[in-house]
């Protein structure tokens, strides 16, 4: 491949002299020779015309429109919508709605809940094309929330985290990039494409700090520090922290996805065949290396 030529180049470089001004030249045709025209077509007025500011080289400034308000001054700078096309949105789901979903058997609370479970109820719509990146859990219904659940959302405030932990549950905030979101929104359609499950990408630079913060229960945060933060929140909001390690469903509550995983129980790189009820796994070394990266 390219390794041969690079090796050859590097071996040549060992014997060539050091780069200095005398042995480099500019890119061909990058410098235009400023030559004053001579002869019938290039001579006489040398392209400057007759009289006026043009021949006298006394030009008007760039943008000047001979007195009227120039285009570059007509419109003042009003940066109200600066970067609006880059801002992420998180359509909300309240704790009350979540409670209703669970009590009406739309979501199974004995299994870990994530974006896929909420979207599969059919009552929550997420549009990644409109820069919507996931679920935001709001605090309406925090006073009546009493179910032990393991939930993974994309954003949650302190009050919401306190309400869920008070009931004995576990909440995690995780990031899914747009490509992963498209796979999660209609999982049946995605599997029917016969494409390997992609790996989830890391959050963008302005979100990494949020998802590595134990106080926000980020999926990239240290679980030991999260345990400490649980006590801090319990002390702040005035409830005794339930001991989850003594809970019979401790394994279900602490079930977590790997940062590169999109679906529970499915690894990136696998191809799910729904018709034959089979999973195809990659065998090639390079593919395995790529998906384990």
């Amino acid at each position, binding site marked *: 491949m390219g390794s041969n030529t690079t090796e050859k180049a590097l071996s040549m470089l060992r014997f060539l002299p050091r780069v200095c001004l005398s042995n480099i030249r500019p890119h061909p045709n990058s410098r235009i020779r400023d030559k004053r025209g001579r002869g019938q077509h290039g001579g006489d007025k040398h392209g400057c015309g007759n009289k006026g500011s043009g021949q006298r080289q006394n030009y008007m400034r760039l943008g000047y429109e001979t007195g009227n308000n120039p285009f570059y001054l007509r419109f003042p700078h009003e940066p109200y919508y600066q970067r609006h096309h880059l801002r992420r949105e998180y359509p909300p789901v309240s704790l009350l709605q979540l409670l209703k979903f669970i009590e009406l058997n739309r979501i199974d609370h004995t*299994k*870990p809940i994530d974006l896929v479970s909420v979207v599969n109820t059919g009552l929550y719509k997420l549009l990644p094309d409109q820069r919507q990146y996931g679920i935001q859990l709001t*605090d309406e219904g*925090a*006073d009546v929330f009493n179910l032990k659940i393991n939930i993974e959302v994309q954003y949650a405030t302190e*009050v919401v985290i*306190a*309400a869920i932990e008070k009931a004995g549950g*576990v909440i995690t905030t995780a990031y899914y990039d747009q490509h992963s979101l498209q796979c999660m929104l209609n999982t049946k359609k995605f599997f029917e494409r016969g494409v390997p499950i992609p*790996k989830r990408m*890391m959050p963008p630079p302005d979100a990494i700090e949020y998802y590595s913060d134990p106080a926000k229960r980020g999926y*990239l945060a*240290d*679980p*030991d520090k*999260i*345990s*400490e933060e*649980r*006590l801090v929140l*319990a*002390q*702040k*909001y*005035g*409830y*005794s*922290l*339930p*001991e*989850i*390690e003594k809970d019979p469903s401790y394994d*279900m*509550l*602490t*079930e*977590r996805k*790997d*940062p*590169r*995983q999109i679906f*529970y*129980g499915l*690894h*990136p790189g696998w*191809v799910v065949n729904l018709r*034959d*009820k*089979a*999973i*195809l*796994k*990659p*065998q*090639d070394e390079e*593919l395995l290396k790529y*998906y*384990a*990266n």
Partner: protein
Amino acid sequence: MSNLCKNFTKIITQVATNRLYSSSYKSAISLDSLYPTSSLKLATPKKPPNEGQDKFTGYIPIEELDITYSRSSGPGGQNVNKVNTKVEVRFNISSASWINDDLKSKLLEKYKNKITKEGFIIFRSDVTRSQHLNLADCLEKIRSSVRSCVVVEQEPSDETAEKLRRRFERATRERLALKRTRSQVKSNRQTPLVNL
């Protein structure tokens, strides 16, 4: 197509249903490679000890507090009439295990206006519309009152005390002098008693 088949030769015909949520996948950025020294398990930490240089760490055992909810006052229509957002927290200072004894006497003295005959100190809050936030506010009030007892006020040095005394005396002298001049002005407006 054949390339694809070559790469995906291993086929599993039946998915194991007993381990539906297996965590066997580990990428390069999994938690055990990000935090190698961590236990990676969620646990309930014990309360921090009250002894040592921190007389009060801020830890309050919530079970020992008596919390009651009631309806708040003020405007708000049907919502304020129905929702129990006001929080009242009370506890007995003498039997509180989480406050040091030297702090207890200071608390009893400093907050005697909040203490009942039986020795229960009461903290109330209805500042927000949410019960949880009001409870948090009550706890914050408790913590700040205990911390204010921990802080020892420094007495001023002899020089500073002397300075303050001289300032106070000068201010008193000026005030009385001003009073005397005003009084003289007022009496000058009256007709004199003896008409000579």
